[in-house]
């Protein structure tokens, strides 16, 4: 491929990538892919891609003014054009496959936990400081994990958002309220779930997002005491702006 053409494609692809990232940031879909802590890095990436694309465009314009015979010795030196084709892959995947956050279809390989292995720097004191209705699925699971005595939590009000997952380990009127926890990007996401109990459970759909309000109880699953919400109401909600929880 002659250098001018190679440079033109490079410029277009850099611009396309830049626009692709920018549109993901603007639409909020970036939250489907990475922990939002890293958004500043992505924004740096967008700006830098724009700078590179601009450099390429000026380079193409400059080379147009240069002597024509410059093209001659360029032929053998351009890098493989396959480099360019590869950059189309993420663009095509991003455009052709509708963006969706990770859901229960990832459970078969990524698995899901009803008890969070996340301990480390967190203490239950931080979570206990907040109002019980402010706690999310991860907070509840951490609490039940960290505290040996869970009786103080029984009967507390809870209000959590998650997506519905049905599992054979539960009875007819129960379902899992699940969330993915993402530290860095979707690649390290793992699912956690607490149990919801509601008489009209059969009307719910797998993977639909719901806001569950009710009181906290406990249930024993696979020899572990895990939190359960006896639901007073289960409302369908749109996919949250931040579909993943960040530890």
């Amino acid at each position: 491929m002659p250098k001018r053409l190679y440079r033109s494609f490079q410029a277009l692809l850099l611009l396309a990538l830049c626009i692709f990232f920018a549109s993901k940031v603007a639409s909020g879909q970036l939250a489907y892919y990475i922990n939002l802590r890293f958004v500043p890095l992505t924004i740096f990436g967008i700006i830098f891609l724009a700078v590179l694309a601009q450099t390429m465009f000026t380079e193409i314009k400059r080379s147009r003014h240069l002597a024509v015979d410059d093209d001659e010795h360029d032929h053998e030196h351009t890098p493989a054009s396959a480099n360019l084709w590869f950059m189309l892959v993420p663009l095509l995947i991003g455009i052709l496959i509708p963006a969706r956050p990770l859901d229960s279809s990832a459970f078969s390989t990524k698995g899901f936990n009803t008890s969070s292995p996340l301990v480390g720097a967190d203490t239950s004191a931080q979570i206990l400081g907040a109002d019980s209705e402010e706690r999310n699925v991860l907070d509840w699971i951490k609490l039940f994990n960290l505290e040996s005595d869970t009786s103080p939590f029984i009967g507390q009000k809870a209000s959590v958002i998650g997506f519905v997952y049905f599992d054979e380990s539960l009875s007819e009127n129960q379902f899992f309220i699940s969330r993915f926890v993402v530290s860095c990007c979707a690649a390290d996401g793992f699912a956690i779930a607490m149990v919801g109990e509601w008489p009209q459970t059969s009307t719910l759909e797998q993977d639909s997002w719901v806001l569950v309000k009710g009181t906290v109880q406990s249930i024993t699953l696979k020899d572990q005491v895990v939190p359960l919400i006896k639901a007073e109401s289960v409302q369908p909600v749109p996919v949250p702006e931040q579909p993943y929880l960040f530890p």
Partner: protein
Amino acid sequence: MQETTPRQSLSRPLIIFIAIGILLMVVFSMIPFDFFTWLWGRLNVFATVFLGIFVEAIPYLLLGTLASGLVEVFIDRGQMSKWISHRPVPAALAGAFMGMIFPVCECGVIPLTRRLFNKGLPLSAGVSFLLAAPVLNPIVVLSTAAAFGWGQMLAWRMGISLVISVVVGLVFSVEQDAANVLHPVLTLAHEHDHSHEIYASFGEKIRAALLITADEFFEMGRYLILGAMLAAGLQTFISQSTLLAVGSGPVFSVLVMLALAILLSICSTVDAFVALGFLGTFSFGSVLSFLVFGPMVDIKSIIMYLQVFRRRAVVYLVAIPFMMSLLAGVIFNYLQP
């Protein structure tokens, strides 16, 4: 007239592309619906995980290739060999300590190292740098401290990574001829035809550096994309939960964490937060081995290594850190179970 040749060569892949597309549609229309929903779910996981790795890695790759571009225009050929000793031990140590200065992770360090080799960096120093930089740099120190506190995990992670990178550097110092280890660098005419006097002004230098950055971004990006696809594919079809279920016992748990480090392909700047999640189910030693090995070797870095090093060298680059991380993990498991 010259314009027609590239157009023709472009239209051929396009026609093949469309033909494959139509063929796929015909094949798909013959498959039962259930399979579709299953496949759609898999595809969604694949796309999300792939784009997750890609979006996360691109800024780091840009930084790494920018560093490489700046090195190309601002450092003279052969200058590195004047700065850094050619005796094996000082060279390997110098390489590892260089890693502490450059804030690059595993995607960015590979193009930068290749460039430094070009500027006369001794082989052993470069290899030590390659393995040390993704762990020992300030960003990783901070993120590890944020996850685990300023304690043992941080100290051992840094210490063991330093030892491994120096050891591998020393192993490579046995090789006298760098050409036996490295692939020749394919560069644009631009880079070697013009000597430095041509970039007269500072602006010219920056412009040249940016052009190199762009070329290298595409070159390395290709392997990043391949690696991310492979990692996402494995995550879509290999069950992580069974892998974790297998992982008990002082040796097996370390092996599982090492396998996971390869499989997950997470950037070293953030892997500490992921490792934190394993601390509940895995021992200190196993998590430590994950933190030491992950930044040095994973699917995408192996594929990118293959671009710079000859195959035999990549075997050493993967196998020695693997054995040493395994050993470190197992020793810790026996000392503090």
